[in-house]
């Protein structure tokens, strides 16, 4: 099997695994970063959201070969010590319940704020609609994004 290199949270990683393996499983089962979650395997729930060269992607639907040589940021690399404004807002409002979807929610929200520092409710709907939460924390997620953006 060929070796593939990619940069994960600033560190170059070389893995030897089938190149069609989705990035999700490379992160979780090969590299050992389990903060990125498996929810549907079909790009429908957003639990596996990571940043690929800064853009949000569903890592369950990105083959390793497509991530080769590129920069991947996972929830573990979003900030040191939960310092990202969104993480602080999530803590302030106690957004998570079971918490399982929240890595993906945070990565999707971080990508939103990076390109749109003051999103409207409609912007939040558009950016976050791909991320399912079965505990129903949407209202607090919306409030936390506004809080992190410097709003209410």
């Amino acid at each position, binding site marked *: *099997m060929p070796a593939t290199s990619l940069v994960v949270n600033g560190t170059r990683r070389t893995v030897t*695994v*089938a190149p069609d*393996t*989705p990035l999700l*499983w490379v992160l*979780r*089962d*090969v590299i*050992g*970063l*389990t*903060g990125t*979650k*498996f*929810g*549907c*395997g*079909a790009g*429908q*729930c957003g*639990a596996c959201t990571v940043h690929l060269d800064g853009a949000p992607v569903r890592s369950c639907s990105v083959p390793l070969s497509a991530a080769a040589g590129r920069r991947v940021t*996972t*929830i*573990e690399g*979003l*900030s040191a010590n*939960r310092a990202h404004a969104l*993480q602080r807002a*999530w*803590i302030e409002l*106690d*957004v*998570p*319940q*079971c*918490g*399982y*979807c*929240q*890595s993906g929610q*945070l990565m999707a929200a971080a990508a939103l704020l990076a390109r749109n520092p003051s999103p409207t409710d409609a912007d*939040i*709907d*558009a950016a*976050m*609609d*791909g*991320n*399912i*939460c*079965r*505990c*129903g*924390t*949407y*209202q*607090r*997620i*919306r409030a936390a994004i506004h809080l992190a953006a410097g709003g209410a």
Partner: protein
Amino acid sequence: MPTEVSRREFVKAGVAVSGLVVALQLPAYARTAVGALGRQGATLSPSAFLEVASDGGVTFWLPRSEMGQGVWSTLSRIVAEELEVSPEAVRVRQASADPKFGDQFTGGSSSISSLWQPLRRACAQAREMLVGAGARTWGVSAADCVAEQGEVLHSASGRRLSYGALVPVASALAVPAAPALKDPKHYRLLGKPARRRDTAPKVDGSASYGLDVRVPGMVFACIARCPVFGRSITGSDGSRARATPGVLDVVTLEAGELQVGDFTFQLPGAVAVVAENSWAAMRGCQALDCHWDRDGGVDSEQLARIFRDRARQAGVLGRNEGDAESGLASATTMVERTYDVPFLAHATMEPMNCTAHVRAGRCEVYAPTQSPTLVRQVAEALTGLETAAVDVHTTLMGGGFGRRFEMDWVIDSIRVSKAIGRPVQVVWTREHDLQHDNYRPASHHVLRGGLDAQGKLVAWTHRVVAPSIIAWHAPKVLPPGSAAAADEALDGAADLAYAIPNLRVDYCPISTPVPVGWWRSVFASQTCFANETFLDEVARAAGRDPVELRRELLAASPRHLAVLNLAADKAGWGSPMAAGRGRGIAIHKFFSDAIVAEVAEVTVGERGLRVDRVVCAIDCGLALDPRNVAAQMEGGIVYALSAALKGAITLEGGRVKQSNFHDYPVLRMSEMPTVEVHIVESAEAPHGVGEPAVPPLAPAVANAVAMATGRSVHRLPLALG
């Protein structure tokens, strides 16, 4: 467990067991404590749940599973309150499945109510022993000493000693049999909004769920089951699976049956593909060529006919007051309606999974489970090992909702590990998870109501046709026709709160091959929809306002009235609405004794149905953490709204048609209504809040839709109705 037992009794039995364990263990623990007197490392541990160490550290072994409902936070605050320490001083550790912790069943919204008494008692015992130790040390009366912030203080002299310093003396004292519980008037923590303890690890990826378990030498496995319910895989060709890169083994699991106490577990004839990583296991599983009997197999239309036919025969009576038939016959106006709701999947965010390691003389199971006790018993039965040789590690779980009370995924992992002799994590794909759930039962309801000449509701009948959940799990001791099965299926129907002189409720059990299970709020999710939607039909027939009619029927139920009025007032009940908009209300007393009323506001227009706002009022007794109560209401409303608008599992050829979130859709951010939660002030004991927000939601929305469109709703989901 007693044999004839309903779910509610089962929950209550779990309560009793937990309390009993504390009581039974006191002498043993007291003896241990006395034996430890004066020794280094002495600890004070009046119950299995609690330990105060000689360095002052307080450890609380959490005997319930955390699935997002907040038990880590709220239960540890009960400890901090009663023991008089700061919440931060309480170290929470997940209990093992050791029998000393009692039954750890986590469901039925029972965690707080079942531990409310035993936990406070254990902490009060420890506190009194520490106070007694201070008094003994200083040669003063215990009545002159108080506990505060982890210290004992002699008020008159101002002398203080830390709990840690007092542990060696305290642990030698007799455990008080009747400790005085703290007066709620003096609560510092309980009743006030609190911060969750588990938020930080849930925002940086460090929280560890079932799928995040990593054990040295572990491998991963995927399972192929027969997609047709009630059948097994009869043969398979694993050669292509074995040739898949990363696949290590293909294991055939024989069909069988496992009896554990009252529970009968069907072991499916299945095939497991074992691989180096999850993806390779999934790909290998797809490459399997499996055979099963493909003829026939029931579909949803057939089932609907069977349900309707069954409703023509009388069922097991759950309640019979006055004379319902005469009441209906003499009524001026009679209303009759039928209601249908579908099977529903749980669709937890984290698909089913479990990690097991079976080796000679030992079994370890890492399970995101709502029933660690049952996991241990299942592991014992499958391996033949003694209790002491089985370790169960309860992990965090990505949603429970009743699905993680089941054992199918636990059994998978233990069987595969036993077969290959290695630690293995069995992971279900989302498709497997949706197609092999224990579904919320479909049900058919027939309701009749009679109004007299003054518009008073004088007669009511409700017939429930549904598969029995308890009979599915314990068919040998609790068959579908048993009183326990009727009691369970009529929850919310037989205990109708409305004062109606002639009332009859019965249950028609029905057997289908579809596995059924406990789903957030269980049968109340169906019965409350039927009750409350039907009551609005009755109100329309009588020309009455739905809130005013409910007030009349609940006149003798002050708790109901307070909740109803709070929701109606906060929602602005009666204020005008634009064309195409509607407002609906529903109220339900859940079996946890919490009462919830919800008012939904909807818009029905060119873009379809949108729920704009839900106003929720709850009486849950003393709201230990109002912030978390609100979170549970928000969560229950969203879970119920997904089901009400979109949820339906349908069958074709005996197998589930839906496979992932594209055809089993759930609520998303852009569809989220504004949710407002209002809590009734109460000093009563706390009632569980994990489920009670679910039942009133669907009827509140249905009633709002009826107002907006002029067409009443008789089936769910609304988007397809």
